[in-house]
């Protein structure tokens, strides 16, 4: 486009768009920095990733609350790997000794690498008098 349009321009290209102003150069510098940083981060991430499998997860119970429909156990699940787990199933069991009194399940669309997500399990029994176990049971790889 450098020359093709010139013949048709009334000023014949003698006065093109003025040169880039200092303010614009500053912004352009910021843009260059931003994209360089994003590329550098992704390259570094790609190099450090060792094809991990999302198995290392950590479940923490945040709180238990009694509501109209039952007892809600709110928990946090944390991914300790660089792999993403999709459609992650989390199961919670209330046990009295060896017997499972009640079970509930929650599903997460995604658990991204090194991320945490919150969810809730709703039980009819009060978890206070029973043992509560929460664990992931399966996922799909995106």
């Amino acid at each position, binding site marked *: 486009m450098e020359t093709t*349009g010139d013949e048709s321009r009334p000023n014949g290209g003698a006065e093109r768009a003025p040169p*880039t102003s200092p*303010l614009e150069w500053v912004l352009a510098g910021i*843009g260059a920095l931003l994209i360089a940083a994003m590329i550098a981060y*992704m390259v570094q991430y790609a190099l450090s990733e060792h094809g991990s499998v999302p198995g290392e997860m950590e479940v923490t119970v945040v709180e238990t609350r009694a509501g109209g429909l039952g007892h809600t156990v709110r928990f946090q699940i944390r991914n300790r790997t660089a792999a993403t787990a999709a459609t992650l199933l989390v199961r919670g069991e209330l046990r009295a000794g060896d017997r499972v009194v009640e079970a509930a399940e929650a599903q997460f669309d995604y658990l991204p690498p090194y991320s945490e997500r919150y969810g809730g399990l709703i039980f009819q029994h009060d978890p206070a008098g029973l043992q509560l176990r929460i664990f992931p049971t399966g996922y799909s790889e995106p």
Partner: protein
Amino acid sequence: MTAETGRKDAALPGRAASDRPVYEDNRSFLVGLARAFAGALIFSLPMLMTMEMWWIGFTMTPWRLVLLLVLMIPLLIGLSVVSGFKANARLRDDVADAFVAIAVAVVMSAVILVIFKVLSADMPAREVIGKIALQSFPAAIGAMLARDQLGEKSSESLQRQSSMTYPQELFLMAVGALFLGLNVAPTEEMVLLSYMMDPWRELALLLLSLVLMHAFVYAVEFPGGSKPPGDVGFWSLFLRFTVVGYVIVLAICLYLLWTFGRTDGTGLAEILSATVVLGFPCAIGAAAARLIL
């Protein structure tokens, strides 16, 4: 970058006054910057509000994201060069424009994604950077196109546009393909449609893409008879623009599907059919590039 439009508007009436400052004034630069933000928003809103775009941001292979970001730079510079609305004297001004577009895109994507709660402070860097980086691709193209879409079309700029060289026309077609194709490429529907459609329907879609594309090419090529249709035959136009354009479109579709991880572990037939499905909007975008860009 888009600042040029603002400046140009300001400069046109005052062209006689040669004592104008060499640089544009800050006000017209800010007007141009606002236009860039608006363009980035208009172009990338559908993608900012598509959940697959958020997910792909952190599930996609880092190398593919790197490639996308690297390719974005020459694409934006090329767009600045080809754009019919600005005559940068030197390539380095186009380069500056490209990086301003990127700055605008990153800031805009980050702000909107934070407001949407797609990004939050407790997310790891990989997720945050991945999401912003992916969204900045369409947003930067939008910022770059802003002056074309929001700026008024002067007869001078239209003339510049009609005097494009053949490679520039093809480049603009590719950008047009991205313009429509990026909206739908990341969605599940592309793959779903390819599963649903039988080969005959895919063939029909391919033919329909070609026919519609040619109709657009013909309509756009001779707007109000600015070029005498006599000197360009049907086959010349069809082969040079429609067929070559469609091949470019399919290549872009394949690249987008691969980037978004839709081709992984998929059979060749399904990849081909998803490419044709995505090729439909891309073909329309490519052929109508001159109208919509």
